[in-house]
């Protein structure tokens, strides 16, 4: 690396990329909740995937052991990440590739833009990649006069609809077939006006639309699902074949990869290639997985660049509790089981990483105060923890981040928050019996306040806006005991 490390590693910079929303989660969520079509689309899609996934996971007798193995490999990886990344760099370089280190989104965008510019191409085709969405690479390329073409069907739907992705695996999950047909009719040049909304017909339209792009574009940009430190092998897991097109046909391939995607050995792939498809699309194996090591003479791109992206990941690694969010293999199982995600959809989270994993990833990548509402975007029900194929304890990280936010708030504001004052008062009251008894008697007043869903009066109304106020009993235990 070219930089001297001084002090705490930096978080993802502001003003670039898509990790921060324009408004807090509760505000955005309220709007999403009012969209009945969105809720129907999401309910249908997440229900479908949950059933498929459960069926194929049920086929694997050692699923729990596999999850534990996945967790252990990732924990080991994070414990020696610098060493593994250097090993990866050596292996990729030896196989004819070039490795670049990007400290943040700005640097990564500049490296990629420079590489594309050097090829003389004014167009690139892209395989779906969360890392390039995270850093806002498309905007950076457009600013440099380079046209990025998304080739994944869902990304294409999002790009043509001038929309934002709302799911890690299926960025257009919020669109149903009728809406997709409308977008294609409106935005796809030369599309058959008799296009129906049959999924197979829509997929065929995308095939025709992109064929020429695949055959004529000289530069491709991909992400990576895994990178094997031992061998320098990169792996991309996909369904449609657009990935194979981008990884095989162009002269130049640029892969942008978050540093946490490295795994130590070739044999470690056996764990993740069993976990990922079943947890992600609910398949025993996804239709296509491509693996390549550097450059192969006469086969595929002859110019290969790997961009290793930090963008706040080293800062995450420094947090003992939060660092396990780096174990994520981007399967999106936690989104599909989350009662909050299923109702609000992905846009409410403001970041390219939505759902439970987004609620722990985004605030850590940006620093918690830049995404302070996300750790609260959860009921802490734990369904995400149960569904995670690498056993990330998302609820514990959420609680940890809430505490971090409270501390940051206290340090920033000279006056304590209303919540802190309430808690301090409650602690004092509970320490003093007469006060506690008086408070219990007074609490009966809330029987009136909470009735008919009115909630508590200000300033306590913040608590009851999203919660039902429990009805206190007409008599306390102490009163009942005295009467006996």
């Amino acid at each position, binding site marked *: 690396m070219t930089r001297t490390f001084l002090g705490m590693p930096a978080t993802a910079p502001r003003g670039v990329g898509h990790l921060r929303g324009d408004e807090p989660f509760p505000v955005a969520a309220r709007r999403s909740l009012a969209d009945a079509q969105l809720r129907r*689309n999401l309910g249908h*899609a997440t229900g*479908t*995937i949950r059933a*498929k996934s459960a069926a194929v996971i049920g086929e694997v007798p050692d699923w729990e052991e596999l999850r534990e193995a996945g967790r252990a490999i990732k924990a080991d990886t994070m414990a020696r990440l610098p060493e593994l990344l250097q090993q990866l760099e050596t292996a990729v370089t030896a*196989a004819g590739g070039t490795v670049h280190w990007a400290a943040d989104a700005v640097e990564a965008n500049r490296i990629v833009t420079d590489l594309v510019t050097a090829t003389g191409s004014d167009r690139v085709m892209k395989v779906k990649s969360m890392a390039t969405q995270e850093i806002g690479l498309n905007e950076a390329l457009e600013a440099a006069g380079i046209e990025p073409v998304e*080739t*994944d*069907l*869902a990304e294409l*739907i999002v790009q043509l609809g001038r929309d934002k992705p709302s799911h890690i695996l*299926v960025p*257009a*999950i919020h669109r*149903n*077939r009728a809406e*997709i047909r409308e977008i294609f009719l409106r935005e796809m040049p030369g599309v058959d006006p008799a296009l129906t909304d049959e*999924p*197979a017909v*829509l*997929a065929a339209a*995308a*095939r025709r639309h*992109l*064929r020429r792009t*695949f*055959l004529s574009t000289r530069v491709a940009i991909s992400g990576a699902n895994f990178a*094997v430190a031992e*061998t320098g*092998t990169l792996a991309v897991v996909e*369904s*449609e*074949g657009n990935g*194979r*097109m981008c990884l*095989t*046909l162009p002269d130049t391939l640029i892969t942008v990869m978050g540093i946490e995607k490295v795994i130590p050995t*070739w*044999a470690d*792939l*056996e764990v993740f*290639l*069993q976990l990922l498809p079943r947890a992600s*699309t609910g*398949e*025993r*194996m*996804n*239709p*296509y*997985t*491509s*693996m*390549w*090591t550097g450059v*192969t*003479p*006469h*086969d*595929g791109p002859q110019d290969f660049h790997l961009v290793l992206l930090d963008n706040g990941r080293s800062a995450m690694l420094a947090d003992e509790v939060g660092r396990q969010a780096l174990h994520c293999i981007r399967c999106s199982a936690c989104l599909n089981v989350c009662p909050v995600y299923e109702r609000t959809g992905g846009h409410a989270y403001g970041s390219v990483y939505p759902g439970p994993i987004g609620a722990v990833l985004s605030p850590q990548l940006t620093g918690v105060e830049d995404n302070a509402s996300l750790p609260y975007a959860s009921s802490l029900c734990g369904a995400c923890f149960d569904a995670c194929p690498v056993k990330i304890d998302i609820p514990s990280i959420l609680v940890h981040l809430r505490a971090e936010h409270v501390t940051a708030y206290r340090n920033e504001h000279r006056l304590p928050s209303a919540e802190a004052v309430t808690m301090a008062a409650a602690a004092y009251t509970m320490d003093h019996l007469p006060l506690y008894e008086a408070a219990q008697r007074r609490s009966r007043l809330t029987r009136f306040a909470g009735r008919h869903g009115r909630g508590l009066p200000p300033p306590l109304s913040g608590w009851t806006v999203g919660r039902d106020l429990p009805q206190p009993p007409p008599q306390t235990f102490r009163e009942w005991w005295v009467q006996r």
Partner: protein
Amino acid sequence: MHLDVLIHRLTDYGAAVHRCADDEVAHVVDAILGGRRVVIPSGLPRHWLPDTVEALADDNLPTERIATADGVVTAAAVAVAETGTVILDAAADQGRRIITLLPDVHICVLRVDQIAAGVPDALARLDPRRPLTWISGPSATSDIELNRVEGVHGPRNLHLVIVPRGSHHSLDPVGDPHSLPQA
């Protein structure tokens, strides 16, 4: 037993499975691609091809020529029974990655002894230095309402022809990166 699992998984994901003797492969290819234009890798056993197809041997064919072919016939490196996967490793009888990508019909000939039980066994048989393509059924997408739909960018028709143990063997030994096809 692995064979039965593999066949079940392949057909479940929409691939067609044919079983025959090594010297009957040409008949199967004829039934699927007879009269059509077919790309073949340089090291493909020629007795697998019927006289009825127009063969385009890949000696570094330009992309446009490969794109106009109706089908492609290759061997395979390894198959994974549990997941219904065939893996190509760009050996001389499988060819460059591009030739199995652009034509709409892919006929892949697999020997029974190339079938691994599961993913761990398959990885142990592969050489990571070679470009590897894992194929599990025809091209598909789950991007519209999370339902699997077959047929997007890759070949929309995948045929597996399974031949007995001891049939044709790969021409270049796996493990030597310098033996990659010079096409």
